[in-house]
């Protein structure tokens, strides 16, 4: 071992999403939309001293074979509304949400995120995502005309304009001098003329506690990594193995220097699922049971249809793979990323594997779709998480429970104390803002960044 400093583990809680990772068939599965469910997960995450709660977003219901996909949890709330409401039932927890930069306008976004940051006392975070598909655009005035190559340009310009608006009131704008009768100084106009926006605006709010709400980003493409390195405070990834994680971590952190940023100014959060057990064997057994719940018979066929590009409802999920060839049909699933890039090659590989291992359709889909990241006893999972962080494969994890709303309870009760025992996780919140929790400096304190980093 070197004398490398021990890194603190950062944890975040992902509200279970609208995909088959979230199990709704379990008797313990509660509402995905009642506010009480969001409140429970957020309070649990705060009890566990997590950095933040995270809510994803998708602006059109997914479709499969030309119809609304009906096998997974469907229905989610408005991001801003839920995060503001959660600010009322939590006191320290960061509140992060996905907001699309294509189907929102910078002025309104700036106002909404500044409002969340004010109303939560400095706990707001924005996961900026881009999309440009005509499918989602059908719900918006803007439509889907933004061409693919423009996505990150629009995202970057959106962030640039929102930050300019957040910075537009000088730090001492709010005077509130009753004797002199001055409430606030004049608000200067913010002008922006770029490829995406032509705006002249006076912003409606003084600087919020964090100055800039924390910016999160997910995107594995080269463009996405570059955008993250230039702009984001934290990145979500999906790199599962230690080695993949280290490669991604090194790559992204290595891009920071050219933007004048230090490696600790960007945190890397892989998403991770987990299954706990009293023993290794029990955890493995629970994991197997959950995989069966996540890939029911109809879901197995639907996954197969995504690759085959055609209706396979006539096939028996407990039988062999279809012998028909895949059709090239990129529109079969809309509203989510389609994973199979070369359907024929995938089908061939799957058939070979199913034959060799004597797997039915459902068994194969269970094998080839994502399995749980961390499976084991609380002590083992704590050790694995700590290893990822200490060996620079991550700065922490965003945990994705498979059950709403109690899926995180056991983790907080059992794994968090193990992490604390290892000296890798906080035993109380030491700051009040999400920037404090993440060890990020305030954006207006650039000159004192070094001292600030040490103090937090």
């Amino acid at each position, binding site marked *: 071992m070197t004398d490398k400093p021990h890194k603190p583990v950062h944890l975040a809680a992902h509200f279970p999403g609208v995909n088959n990772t979230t199990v709704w068939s379990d008797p313990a599965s509660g509402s995905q939309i009642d506010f009480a469910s969001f409140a429970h997960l957020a309070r649990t995450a705060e009890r566990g001293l997590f950095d933040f709660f995270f809510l994803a977003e998708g602006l059109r219901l997914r479709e499969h074979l030309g119809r609304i996909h009906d096998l997974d949890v469907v229905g989610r709330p408005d991001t801003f509304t839920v995060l503001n409401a959660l600010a009322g039932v939590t006191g320290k927890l960061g509140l992060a949400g996905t907001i699309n930069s294509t189907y929102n306008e910078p*002025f309104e976004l700036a106002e909404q995120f500044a409002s*969340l940051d004010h109303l939560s006392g400095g706990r707001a975070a924005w996961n900026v995502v881009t999309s440009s598909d005509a499918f989602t655009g059908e719900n918006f005035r803007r439509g889907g005309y933004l061409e693919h190559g423009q996505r990150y340009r629009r995202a970057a310009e959106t962030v640039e304009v929102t930050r300019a608006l957040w910075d537009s009131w000088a730090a001492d704008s709010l005077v509130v001098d009753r004797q002199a009768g001055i409430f*606030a100084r004049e608000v200067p106009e913010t002008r922006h003329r770029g490829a995406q926006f032509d705006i002249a605006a006076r912003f409606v709010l003084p600087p919020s506690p964090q100055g800039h709400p924390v910016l999160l980003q997910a995107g594995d493409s080269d463009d996405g990594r570059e955008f993250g390195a230039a702009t984001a405070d934290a990145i979500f990834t999906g790199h599962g193995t230690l080695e993949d994680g280290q490669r991604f971590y090194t790559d992204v952190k290595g891009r920071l220097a050219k933007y004048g940023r230090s490696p600790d100014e960007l945190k890397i959060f892989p998403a991770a699922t987990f299954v706990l057990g009293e023993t290794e064997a029990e955890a493995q057994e629970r994991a197997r049971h959950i995989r069966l719940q996540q890939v029911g018979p109809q879901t197995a066929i639907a996954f197969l249809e995504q690759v085959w590009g055609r209706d396979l409802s006539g096939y028996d999920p407990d039988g062999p793979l279809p012998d028909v060839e895949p059709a090239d049909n990129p529109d079969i699933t809309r509203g989510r990323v389609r994973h199979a890039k070369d359907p024929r090659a995938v089908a061939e590989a799957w058939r070979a594997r199913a034959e060799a291992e004597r797997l039915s359709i459902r068994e194969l889909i269970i094998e080839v779709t994502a399995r749980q990241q961390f499976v084991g006893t609380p002590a083992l999972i704590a050790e694995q998480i700590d290893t990822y962080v200490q060996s620079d494969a991550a700065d922490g994890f965003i945990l994705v429970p498979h059950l709403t709303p109690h899926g995180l309870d056991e983790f907080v009760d059992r794994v968090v104390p193990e992490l604390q025992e290892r000296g890798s996780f906080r035993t109380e919140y030491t700051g009040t803002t999400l920037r404090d929790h993440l060890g990020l400096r305030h954006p207006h304190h650039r000159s004192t960044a070094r001292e600030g980093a040490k103090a937090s």
Partner: protein
Amino acid sequence: MTRPDFFLAVELAGTGAHPASWRRDDSRAEDLFTGRYWVDAIVAAENAGLDAVFLPDSFGVQPSGPGATRGRLDAVSIAARVAAATHGIGLVPQAPVTHTEPFHLAKAIQSLDFATLGRAGWEVTVSEGAEQARAFGRKRAQDAAALWHEADEAIEVVTRLWDSWEDDAEIRDLPTGRFVDRDKLHYIDFAGDNFAVKGPSITPRSPQGQSIVAVRADGVEDADVAARRADLIRISAGDLDAARARRTELRAALAATGRDPDAVHVLLDLDIHLADSVDAAADELRTLDSWADSLVASAPSLLRHIGTAGTLRAALEAVATAEAADGVVLRPLAIPAALRRLSFLERKSLSPGTLRTRLGLPRPASRYATSTEGTPS
């Protein structure tokens, strides 16, 4: 006492409707942009037994200069922030439709309705003028006719989206593996002059089904939209006779569109300042006005009540007796001073329940529902 069904709401703008209200010692102006300020104010309104709170909003900075309160939090966000701290009061944020996406607005109000267990409303507003248009940079300033035609379309889109999931769309059917019955999720397929929206909403049908829609009827174009679409119509008038005349006009307009005028509440604005005595209230108002000398004065044509909680109670009774309105929206000139005294109105305390129920309105079935027609829910 006022009639039990006489609707009493309060509108909370900044530190108060008076532009110099922040200069009072009790204004809490330093806290204006915190969650605590808004929770305290709205909980006080709830404890005073008020039926609803209106929260004004705009994308424009207040124009009155450095001596007046300026800056404004997003109103839907404020309503969401106080949702868990309140249990009975209706929350009616303003949300403009001129530069925003009706799809976002629809789910925001639906989510507020979920977070409040059925106490959400939406006051529809438009963004006038070039300044707000330039803040978005997407289109030019519009005249009243264009603004309210767009608002009319936006309300149609939003209310269709609110119905786009039938109440029983979520089925969790284990044998077929289906979480939802897709036949109970509906495309709204709206195509109008200002936008086209496909639907369905990403958010399931909320506790009230249709949250309460409020529209202010100051002019011709907004009154027309109000008569066709609002559950609450807000008016302002210089005296009770003018208010009664306006209400009569609006009721005729409601009937002309085929709606039941008794299903719609016409709410009259009433600016108030309250103190321990009528003289003290008048003195305090003079002080506020003296501070405001240098400010751009707002039009003083509104109905005002400067007095005590006792005299306000009598004034409200007079509104009800004169049938000048179905309810009143109190607009405190200085918020903490008024809220402190509203408990002396001796309103019945609010029981938990939806805003719809408080207004005596049934919960409507989804316009897309066919299978449940005529069956009790």
